[in-house]
């Protein structure tokens, strides 16, 4: 699997992301600077977390309009798998690759903690190694992770099986008490209509190294490595 991790000024999670991908696929991703305009020959493109452009104007707004994102959009339209985590999810919504937007957390606090996620959509290329209903515990670290979309969009996402993760507790309960940031319908991650563009606020890459405590993010990367075995 040949992969690229996009780097904007202010991105800070590219190394953990690259480590996680390498752990699962055996191949180190290319780190691609935001001024590049072409992304050819990749099976997977990742927009990692951080604070691109200092979160100026809106989180992800500047990055979403940068030249490299036009190349990411083109690649997505060709069927290349695209993963956006945290700020990367915000950027994918700003580019229009994913519906909705990420608002300020309902509690007005930056949330940096472990949280439980319930897997819903378990399909290639991102989540076929998970089983529907499976609960994993991974970290979140965000100030604007409060997913918003209008009711019609939410109904469509649910109807089309495009909700990948919801916030829950250890028992898998999804309700207002397990919704850590105010996201509508507890949504933590969604895919586009093709299923090949995934955006999520939690950080699976932070849970891929036993030495750091958790490996529950590994199935996502193993799924990708399995699904995107390149020629």
């Amino acid at each position, binding site marked *: 699997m040949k992969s690229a991790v996009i780097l904007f000024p202010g991105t800070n999670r590219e190394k953990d992301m690259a480590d996680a991908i390498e752990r699962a696929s055996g191949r180190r991703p290319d780190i691609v600077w935001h001024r590049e305009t072409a992304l050819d020959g990749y099976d997977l493109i990742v927009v990692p977390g951080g604070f691109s452009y200092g979160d100026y104007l*809106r989180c992800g707004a500047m990055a979403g*309009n940068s030249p490299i994102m036009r190349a990411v959009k083109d690649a997505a339209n060709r069927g290349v798998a695209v993963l956006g985590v945290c700020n990367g999810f915000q950027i994918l919504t700003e580019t229009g690759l994913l519906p909705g937007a990420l*608002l300020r957390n*309902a509690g*007005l606090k930056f949330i940096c903690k472990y949280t439980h996620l319930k897997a819903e959509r378990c399909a290639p290329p991102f989540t076929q190694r998970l089983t529907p209903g499976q609960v994993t515990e991974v970290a979140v670290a965000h100030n604007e992770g*409060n997913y918003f979309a209008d009711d019609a969009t939410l109904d469509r996402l649910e109807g089309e099986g495009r909700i990948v993760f919801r916030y829950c507790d250890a028992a898998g309960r999804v309700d207002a008490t397990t919704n850590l940031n105010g996201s509508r319908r507890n949504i933590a991650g969604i895919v586009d209509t093709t299923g090949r563009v995934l955006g999520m606020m939690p950080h699976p890459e932070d849970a891929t190294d036993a030495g750091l405590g958790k490996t529950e993010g590994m199935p996502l990367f193993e799924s990708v490595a399995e699904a995107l075995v390149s020629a």
Partner: protein
Amino acid sequence: MKAKVFVTLKPGVLDPQGKAIEHALGGLGFDGVNEVRQGKVIELDLAAEDEAKAESEVEAMCRKLLANTVIENYRIEIEA
């Protein structure tokens, strides 16, 4: 020519910052505040000399970058 863009959250979109301001005002004894919604003002100094052209340019800027129309409304004021 100068322009001002007022970006506000759409009705129905949760505004936790507005809520916090509302509570703070209540704490200061301002009892008559029913609701607070926070937005932002963006001031532009434009080369355009024609008012209609300036407005259509700013309109395009709002749609492309200045506002996220999924969650925000915008209003443009041109100052001739």
